């Protein structure tokens, strides 16, 4: 995957906004290592115990491009799109029942109280409303996938 300058700037922005001090991404043919603050974490006194060795620092980049450290609230981002995030962990369903049409498709207009999906927790079906006005620009998770608390479900072009 080729990264543009834009992508790099986006990564740096996420790290800047998060509580992370260091980030390491290793994929095929690409390696990125970023450390915030300029200080040498080793010298500044990490415990010399197995559980906290430098080597293990931040293998996982933040989940989702929106930056997982920020609270899950609908809001505008640098690309001008608002997001609808998961109010709870559970299984993401785009429709009321199998075979039924999805609540919303890309291009659909939504109001704050429009139901956009269902999140199931232990057979309890929880309707999720948009919380914003606009047009659905992207549906992020696959149907029937586990979504985390705060995960981005939809991107919305604000009205």
């Amino acid at each position, binding site marked *: 995957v080729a990264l543009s300058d834009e992508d790099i700037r986006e990564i740096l922005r996420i790290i800047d906004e*998060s*509580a*992370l*001090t260091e980030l390491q991404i290793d994929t095929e043919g690409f390696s990125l290592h970023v450390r915030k603050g300029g200080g040498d*974490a080793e010298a*500044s*006194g*990490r*415990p*010399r*115990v*197995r*559980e*906290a060795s430098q080597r*293990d*620092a*931040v*293998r*996982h980049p933040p*989940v989702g491009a929106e930056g*997982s*450290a920020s*609270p*899950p609230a609908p809001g505008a981002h640098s690309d001008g799109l608002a997001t609808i995030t998961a109010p*709870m*962990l*559970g*299984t993401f369903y785009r429709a009321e029942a199998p075979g039924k049409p999805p609540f919303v498709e890309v291009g659909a207009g939504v109001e704050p109280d429009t139901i956009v999906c269902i999140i*199931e*927790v*232990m057979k*309890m079906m929880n309707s999720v409303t948009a919380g914003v006005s606009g047009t659905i620009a992207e549906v992020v998770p696959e149907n029937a*996938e*586990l979504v*985390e*608390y*705060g*995960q981005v479900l939809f991107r919305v072009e604000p009205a």
Partner: protein
Amino acid sequence: VNRIKRVFVANRGEIALRIVTACQELGLETVVGTSEADRDGLAARRADRAVCIGPAPAGESYLRDDLVVQAALGTECDAIHPGYGFLSESPKLAARAEENGLIFIGPPPEVIELSGDKLRARDEAARAGVPILPGKEIAPGDDARQAADEIGYPVLVKAAGGGGGRGIKLAKDGDELDSLLSLARSEAGAAFGDERLYLERFVANARHLEVQIAADEHGAVVHLGERDCSVQRRYQKVIEEAPAPNLDPGTRNALTAEAVAFATAIVYRNLGTVEFVLDADTAEYFFLEINCRIQVEHPVTEAVTGRDLVKLQIHIADGHPLGFSQNDVTFDGHAIECRLNAEDVARGFMPSPGTLSLFSVPDLRQLRVDTHLCAGATIPPYYDSLMAKLVAHAEGREATIDVLLEALEELDVEGVETNRALLISVLAHEDFRRGAVSTVWLERAIV
């Protein structure tokens, strides 16, 4: 055949990291369920995957058995390890896991339920022939004074749904008993969802001793020795050690045999701890309660037995026989653990959350450190204040104390207040160095 291949860790802090490490050493995959406050924590980073199960307050994340099971299913785990605290002694989580085809790493729900009901556990212990303290349930309208007169003052008022040092009050006479009963009842109802109370004799010069047991699904029950956890503040353990100092072999053998007998009688499964109070004046011992989780202080037992208790929990939960007998359990040296907490001792032990600008534990040969923290890490205000467990293991008790003292003296920590100075003054105190202290010693001699 191993059924467990991927473990869902339903906890946080040092114990979540401890479980992740044990799983990795067993070749198992791990998924950590974190709250929003812990998603960048070391356990989440070290695991194969982390999922955010809810917001920071534990009631909306770590205490939600429905979210835990949903997350474990959604990440295709086959087992749940609950750690300690939170849902570790929730029969609801164990039952829900079972109903959904997941292995709960702990005892079956009915055993957890019995362990959680301190009154029923007392009855079961008595039935198994284990000595219990004189005591009696006090239902609303019962004559508490008459019951207390028979037991003698001061008397402890305990919540049947409590345990682990919670829901306990001391009444020094009948008037005090009358005045605190109704408050104790409403507090018990609010905290444990169970208003039942009972009175129990208070042992003035008491030591807290507990026996680690392990029981497989094929009927084998062994003990892994005892721990002394008498250094306590407000019924919460501060320093724990194994073996118990100055314990005569006859009492030790009796305690461990009683623990095994009790576990056998209630068809216990997996790891557990049988707690006793030892009257230091009379050398009598009495059953207190059984805890059906991995204990915070398990590393001292690991040190002296050379056995990994978290791996043993997983091994048993996977249906395997223990693989060793009582005769194979041997003990080597002395181990002491102290709990380094982020708290302000001078201000009534107030929790002291914050960001660690500096945190470095010395690398000593005879020291084990279980921690999820490093410099730059934040201790959130939502959970307990445990920062690290420092565990020393050496040949004799004196040498072990010296290792811990060296570790605490050399520890670098800045950014939060800690109880380091308190731990040092306990370890250096001649009463403690001489051997056994009582459960009220810390508050009388130090605090």
